[in-house]
């Protein structure tokens, strides 16, 4: 039984009755209804409590401008979605909607007591009240305010709905499918353009479908019907209903969200259009008078829409306060059509002085020009101050900021208690007044001080009133006050829609090394490192990570280990000028490198700071392979390309990125050479045939081509075996199989890090952090003095030669049973909790060294290279402790390097 549903008419499907629930109460509506129209049909007029004063609120509008009727709905997964506008929620069978912002229930709400204190809750209340003492903020005020503030509650379950993201382009994009939009779309179609027509409503046609002009004998509908047929027939027009274009960006980019009622919940569209036509219409503005927020007060055009579109009778006795005569006449016609009695109209020079009615409007008091008061008993008050042109989308890209109102007429703003200019944020006229009196009279200041227009409706029904109030209060012209900066989204868009399908694993693409599947077999624990999924450690049985890492390190130091090095960036460099190019790019001497040899090399930025490190291998004359760190490989690749394409186009050099072409496995440890020999490579493996810092090319087992590099990151004798990526599985199995006799142990990133810190090798991000020079890092003797390379000029700067710079050193605890805290700052004296001291450096890496049996660390220390054997303190305010440490060389293990030359 829908008490307020008209017998006939409307764009609803009376054959499909839908049951839904509001605050647990079972109600029925029809397909084609919004939650708002269905509630009105069931005579439910109060649907919400306002945010600040908990005032009873009803339904003001029939579209996305709705400031009052915010509800929470339960989605398919049982999650509560807060702050949905009842005017935008399409009725679905079994829909469960709840009112918000009230306790214990909508009608009896304890929060409504706040109205009694309203005079203390004026604009800027928080700023003024919670100023002092400052320590009160985190402890008391914030908690208190968070309890009371906010609208709606979110359930913390994962969003189970499906979202998609698509792109399209067109010649002409028409936003708004009302009569104007349809005309524009057809015109563009006639010019043979591809046209996209979008509208956030579920129906194409806009208000002309139902908003009948009085005396129009069906001409308008006939016209529309014809146009809709033309739209359908035009093959170059695509109509997208339920699609909200919410943002306009540079170069014709428009973002839109298409809502679906079944299947995919919504689709996020990126539309590139050569031309954009805004046919976004206007939004009707309410009047400002005391008590203008009661349930039963409705915008005039919304009243007409509820009557004609949804066949709802919005009240029984109506009073009209509509400025524009044509709108007034149209509304009166609609009300008569619905059988609503019109008890009166607001005449020239009259003002509404008060409204009464606790949960729904009961009467309106009107003051005439001569001071006489008239009282009208009514339950519906249709208001309209005029229309404000909807220019948000053009204002977003900086156009039309001054066009506040379209054909609106000046209407002096009312005052007095409960005269709201912004319903959603409960901003009253008096708040605007106090903002102006306190100096916040620029519209941007007024907005921030009073929160006007900062709700989910973004002030669609409040800018007109605010601007008018500001104009009156400051004596400025109405038209001279611009709107505040408008930014996307035009209307709220859910995070789910923006994220689309890019959630969880799909957020960032995962790069897997060619060894990935075989590593999984060896119970590898993976970790993400940038885009890469990298092997971290290989636990045996129920071993902990620390135990596993110690075992892996021990194996490398005493037998042999194998580690995946495929993520290192690799670039193949060819051409007559290849060595000239590389010599300019790297700061150390590489010009005399022989075929079959490789060299550690450091690349500087233009300003002389270390950019990246890696190796340069000479494969043949004019043919090199260079490696770069995993983290920097994209940046180095870009940089090398830039040098060749932009700055040195005269050089004959060809670059090929081959990172993904090779599976690269390093075998490291004293047994590495014998293990390599067992793999029967084509080339000789003894120390004279294959010395340290060499590269050999040939076949393994006579069937797999390989490149083997003798280099070391771990400090042990080590060979990096590269095979075409498709042979990764074979290589790994082969190394494990043949390595069994040599004690081969797979190791991962954690053990690699321990090994390199013991050896004092550098890592990008910790030691190579963009602020250190080669000299700072202890590589000063590597930097060539007689050649030209990038960074050489600015490396001459005196400041970079200052010995007081932070320099890389090693640190050991004075008492080797104590640990050095990670991320510690270095200070000269013992640090105790609360001490304020000047830091003279910082730790970059700290580990418990299984090889040395104590805690060790690398650190950047002021004047560090001249402070060996000094004692300092490593202080960590986070761990609340400090440890006394001694400065040593950064290389803790085998400083002479005899092991890797074995």
């Amino acid at each position: 039984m829908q008490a307020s549903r008209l017998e006939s008419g409307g764009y609803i499907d009376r054959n499909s009755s839908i049951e839904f629930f509001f605050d647990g109460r079972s109600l029925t509506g029809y397909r084609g209804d919004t939650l708002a129209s269905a509630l009105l049909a069931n005579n439910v007029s109060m649907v919400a409590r306002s945010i600040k004063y908990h005032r009873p609120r009803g339904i003001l509008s029939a579209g996305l401008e709705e400031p009052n009727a915010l509800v929470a709905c339960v989605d398919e997964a049982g999650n509560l979605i807060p702050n949905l506008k009842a005017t935008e929620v399409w009725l679905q069978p079994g829909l469960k909607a709840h009112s918000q912002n009230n306790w214990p229930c909508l009608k009896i709400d304890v929060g409504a007591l706040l109205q009694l204190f309203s005079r203390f809750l004026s604009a800027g209340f928080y700023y003024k009240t919670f100023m002092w003492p400052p320590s009160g903020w985190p402890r008391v005020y914030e908690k208190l305010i968070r309890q009371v503030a906010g609208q709606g509650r979110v359930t913390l379950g994962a969003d189970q709905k499906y979202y998609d993201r698509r792109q399209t382009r067109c010649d002409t994009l028409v936003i708004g499918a009302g009569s104007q939009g349809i005309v524009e779309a057809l015109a563009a179609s006639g010019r043979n353009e591809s046209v996209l027509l979008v509208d956030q409503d579920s129906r194409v046609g806009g208000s002309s479908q139902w908003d009948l002009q009085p005396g129009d004998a069906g001409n308008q509908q006939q016209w529309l019907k014809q146009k809709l047929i033309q739209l359908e027939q035009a093959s170059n027009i695509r109509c997208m209903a339920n699609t909200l274009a919410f943002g306009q960006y540079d170069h014709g980019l428009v973002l839109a969200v298409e809502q679906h009622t079944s299947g995919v919940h919504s689709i996020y569209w990126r539309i590139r259009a050569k031309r954009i036509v805004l046919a976004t219409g206007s939004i009707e503005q309410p009047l400002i008078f005391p008590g203008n927020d009661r349930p039963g007060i409705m915008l005039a055009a919304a009243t007409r829409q509820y009557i004609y579109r949804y066949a709802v009778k919005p009240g029984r006795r109506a009073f009209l306060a509509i400025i524009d005569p044509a709108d007034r006449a149209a509304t009166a016609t609609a009300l008569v059509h619905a059988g609503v009695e019109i008890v009166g109209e607001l005449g020239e020079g009259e003002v509404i002085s008060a409204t009464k009615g606790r949960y729904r409007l009961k009467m309106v008091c009107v003051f005439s020009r001569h001071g006489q008061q008239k009282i009208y008993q009514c339950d519906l008050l249709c208001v309209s101050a005029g229309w404000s042109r909807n220019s948000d989308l053009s204002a977003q890209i900086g156009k039309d900021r001054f066009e506040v109102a379209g054909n609106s007429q000046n209407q002096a703003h009312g005052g007095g208690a409960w005269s709201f200019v912004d319903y959603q944020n409960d901003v009253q006229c008096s708040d605007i007044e106090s903002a102006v009196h306190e100096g916040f009279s620029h519209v941007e200041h007024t907005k921030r001080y009073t929160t006007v227009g900062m709700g989910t409706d973004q002030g669609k029904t409040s800018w007109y009133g605010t601007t008018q109030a500001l104009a009156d209060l400051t004596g400025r012209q109405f038209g001279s006050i611009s709107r505040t900066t408008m930014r996307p989204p035009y209307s709220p868009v859910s995070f789910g829609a923006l994220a689309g399908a890019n959630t969880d694993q799909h957020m960032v693409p995962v790069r897997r090394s060619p060894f990935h599947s075989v590593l999984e077999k060896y119970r590898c624990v993976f970790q993400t490192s940038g885009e890469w999924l990298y092997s971290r450690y290989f636990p045996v049985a129920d071993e902990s990570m620390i135990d596993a890492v110690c075992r892996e390190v021990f194996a490398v130091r005493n037998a042999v280990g194998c580690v995946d090095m495929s993520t290192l960036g690799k670039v193949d460099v060819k051409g007559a000028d290849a060595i000239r190019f590389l010599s300019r790019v790297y700061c150390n001497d590489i010009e005399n490198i022989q075929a079959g040899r490789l060299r550690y090399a450091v690349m500087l930025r233009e300003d002389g700071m270390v950019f990246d490190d890696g190796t340069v291998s000479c494969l043949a004359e004019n043919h090199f392979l260079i490696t770069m760190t995993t983290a920097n490989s994209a940046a180095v690749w870009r940089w090398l390309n830039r040098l060749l394409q932009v700055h040195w186009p005269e050089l004959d050099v060809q670059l090929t990125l081959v990172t993904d072409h090779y599976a690269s496995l390093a075998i490291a440890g004293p047994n590495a050479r014998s293990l390599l020999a067992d793999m029967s490579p084509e080339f000789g493996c003894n120390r004279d045939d294959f010395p340290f810092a060499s590269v050999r090319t040939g076949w393994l087992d006579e069937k797999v081509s390989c490149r083997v590099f003798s280099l070391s990151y771990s400090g042990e004798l080590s060979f990096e075996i590269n095979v075409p990526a498709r042979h990764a599985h074979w290589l790994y199995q082969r190394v494990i199989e043949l390595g069994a006799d040599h004690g081969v142990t797979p190791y991962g990133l954690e053990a690699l890090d321990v090994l390199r810190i013991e050896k004092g090798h550098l890592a990008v991000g910790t030691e190579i952090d963009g602020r250190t020079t080669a000299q700072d890092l202890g590589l000063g003797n590597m930097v060539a003095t007689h050649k030209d390379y990038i960074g050489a000029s600015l490396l001459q700067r005196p400041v970079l030669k200052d010995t007081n710079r932070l320099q890389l050193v090693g640190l050991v605890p004075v008492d080797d049973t104590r640990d050095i805290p990670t991320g510690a700052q270095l200070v000269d004296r013992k640090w105790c909790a609360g001490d304020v001291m000047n830091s003279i450096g910082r730790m970059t890496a700290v580990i418990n060294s299984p090889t040395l049996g104590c805690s060790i660390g690398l650190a950047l220390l002021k004047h560090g290279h001249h402070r060996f054997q000094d004692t300092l303190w490593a202080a960590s305010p986070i761990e609340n402790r400090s440890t006394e440490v001694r400065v040593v060389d950064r290389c803790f293990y085998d400083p002479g390097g005899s092991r890797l030359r074995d």
Partner: protein
Amino acid sequence: MLLIPCPNCGERDEGEFNYGGRARVFPPIEKTASVEDWHRSIHFASHEQGQVHEYWYHHGGCECWIEVKRNLHNHEIAAVNATRSDTDRSGT
């Protein structure tokens, strides 16, 4: 988000490119080159408004650096050039 007309690939979304800063003089790297030239090039870059020349790298397409003439006031792109002639790329 800009639509950048790559001379090799056509109009592509800004997301396919890396910004490479304003186009600038790259001083010679010879030792004899003055430190001042390098300072001017990277520390005292001009920040004029309006029409500027910039480098963009098309990582999502041809992997070429291009030079874009763009108006900072309205993002209008007046011209785009490939920075390297293709004649000296034989062998790739």
